[in-house]
């Protein structure tokens, strides 16, 4: 038996060469072996990412190509892109759900941005009681969406809720709110605005505090009024912050599930009036046990979100540059 040891020859500082074994195979030097240590050190993080992100994603994509029904561990067959075709040609549930997802997100996020910016401008300068106002503003953020949903269901109950009693004082007839097919989505958007406007305020306030004061001062000296200073000085400088806040809140709003499910139940209501893509996918999974189709909807939803994020990121980068 012949034993060969690894040769080690330095050709310069920090450099090493590979010596060939008689068999022709290269040996691994100590430095090379040491470099591979990084894989061992990275292992926990890579394992976590693999298990928690990559595996579910790959699993869902795989499931979306099958006719899995009833149980994911039961037998299923590959059906190619059939589930995607079924989803994309479904004008009764899928496309209306896409429309509601977009409507809900756009409506809620635009309102939250406008109101959040207005509140941030108001709170930009210190005033007496500012800390109390900020604390009160944070309260909706602390509650879980399910608790908020139940709270608003009680307030807006058409028969026993306090909202209709209050409207009665000003002569407005009772409303059905979440019980109405036409009012459900706008009502849910307003609840979302109530909960998430404070977050937009905090983000935009943080952006406002970093703005230099000189340009605004110069504009004031030149005779620009408050509105002109806001439109021509503050808004352009705050654009990057606004876009970042829009991306963060927009992606979050797209994924809204708990609030809708807590208030409207399975299917987003009797006429699917508040069924967004998330609620639809949940229903396909847990009410219908159609795992293949549900996975296809989720994959399409993920692609949809990724596309929006990419577009917004590019806009952010362009505006930053």
């Amino acid at each position, binding site marked *: *038996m*012949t*034993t*060969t*040891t*690894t040769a080690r020859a330095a050709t310069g500082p920090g450099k090493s060469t590979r010596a060939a*074994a*008689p*068999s022709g*195979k290269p*040996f*691994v*030097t*100590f430095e090379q*072996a*040491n470099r*591979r*240590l990084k*894989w*061992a050190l990275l*292992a926990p993080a*890579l*394992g976590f990412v*693999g*298990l928690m992100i990559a595996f579910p994603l790959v699993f869902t994509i795989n499931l979306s190509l099958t006719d899995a*029904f*009833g*149980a*994911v*561990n*039961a037998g299923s067959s590959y059906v190619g892109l059939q589930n995607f075709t079924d989803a994309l040609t479904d004008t009764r549930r899928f496309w209306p759900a896409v429309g509601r997802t977009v409507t809900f997100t756009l409506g809620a996020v635009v309102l939250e941005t406008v109101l959040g910016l207005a509140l941030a401008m108001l709170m930009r300068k210190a005033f007496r009681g500012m800390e109390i106002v900020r604390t009160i503003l944070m309260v909706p953020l602390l509650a879980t969406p399910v608790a908020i949903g139940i709270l608003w269901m009680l307030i807006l*109950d*058409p*028969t*026993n809720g306090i909202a209709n009693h209050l409207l009665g004082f000003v002569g407005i007839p*009772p409303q*059905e*709110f*979440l*019980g*109405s*097919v036409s009012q*459900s989505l706008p009502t849910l958007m307003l609840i979302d605005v109530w909960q998430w406007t404070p977050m937009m305020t905090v983000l935009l306030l943080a952006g406002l505090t970093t703005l230099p004061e000189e340009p605004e001062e110069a504009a004031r000296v030149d005779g620009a009024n408050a509105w002109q200073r806001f439109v021509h000085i503050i808004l352009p400088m705050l654009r990057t912050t606004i876009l970042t806040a829009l991306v963060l809140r927009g992606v979050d709003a797209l994924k809204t599930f708990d609030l809708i499910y807590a208030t*409207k*139940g*399975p*299917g987003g*209501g*009797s*006429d699917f009036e508040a069924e967004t893509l998330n609620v639809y996918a949940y*229903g396909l*999974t*847990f*009410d*219908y*046990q159609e795992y293949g189709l549900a996975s296809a909807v989720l994959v399409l939803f993920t692609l949809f979100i990724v596309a929006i994020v990419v577009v917004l990121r590019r806009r952010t980068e362009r505006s930053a540059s």
Partner: protein
Amino acid sequence: MTQAIRPRRALELSRRSFGVLAAASVLAACSRGPQTASPNAPLRVLAINHVWTQAISRYLPELEERIGRRVTMRMLTADQLTSSFNVKLNASATDIDVMTIRPLQDQMMFARNGWIADLTDRVEDDADYRWTDFQDAPRERSITAGAAVSVPVVTERPALYYRKDLLQDFGGAPATLDDMLDIALELQRRTEGFFGFVGRGQRSGAVTQWSSFLYSFGGDFTVDGRSGIGSPEAVAAYQYYGRLLHDAGPPGATNMSLEQAMPIFAQGKAAMYVDADAIYSNFLDDSISTVTDTVGFAPFPAGQAGSVPHNIPSWSLAVNEFSLLRDDSWEFVRWASSPEMVARLQSEGIPGARQSVWDDPATLASFPADLAEAMRVNAANGVGHDRPEVMQVGRARDIVGRPLVSGIVGEDVASVAADADAEFNDFLVRDNRQQEF
């Protein structure tokens, strides 16, 4: 043989070997451990948050002493329970031993998936258990593909809850559906927030209670394996229920399930209410009801085909196929559904499924007299299902419930029912294919 001696072998971790190591680690982590339960492992029951579960949990020490094992019971709402089963049993979880399931909602799918154990030999071979003592309809619903896979513990029928003080002038509770509609329309003062009738109106949630209206009009969900929801009887039932809620019911009825409808009657804001008889105690509880002294109970009113309510096993016990404590799980089921326990619980106001217990007047003593009579009459006339008997019950309920919602919001029911009928027929073809397991 030539062998290279490599320095610090422990540090040499190529991408390939790292991948192999990671995969092996994952497989090791995911592989099943020893397939026997620890002697100290508790028997785990995942159950519905229901008066039955709360009652049975008080007697658990008796069983724990008998099987020499601790019993833990976790309670969830119906939706949470179904989601939990779906998640856990898809992963072949062994941390559930006994389950409460809705036989008419879950059982066929769970049996197809291989999630619930076959109990046929256990229920049939045990003479003391008296399997044939269970009422026919609930017992038949325990059998899927020829195997007994669950045991009924709670049965349910609709009851007509009404305000005795308001209906006194009309001669008491209505005996027919026509009378009920007339009285509801006469008593309602919608602008003042008082309603002649309240009931479930959610697309899927209302289907079970509406079923009694459907049967009493002479219809059914399916007729000879095909959709029955486009029949004249079904359309009449849709129109009737829609008018009842549209003209005499509260606003926002299409968003109402049990949780929204019940408080309206309990707060004295409706004259009549049809829902499960199992919830009667909510109206006798001073802390949540203002009608404790005025509520009356009556059998389901008669339609053109007579009074034909549903009489169903609402909750049953099943054993997880993946349980490591099958024998103890069966002991739990046997104990909780024994003649003695069913009699004990029915005496506490929880209606069971054993005929011998129903035949014993002492077990009905805890119910208000008029409710006991209503339950007896409804049980005698009852049909054993309250929703389509299919594999994919959730999708079926969504289809069947569509004309119901149209009626409640005042739209044309006939055309929607015809459309839903065609959709339901297509669905039944697909569902029948899935039932071949």
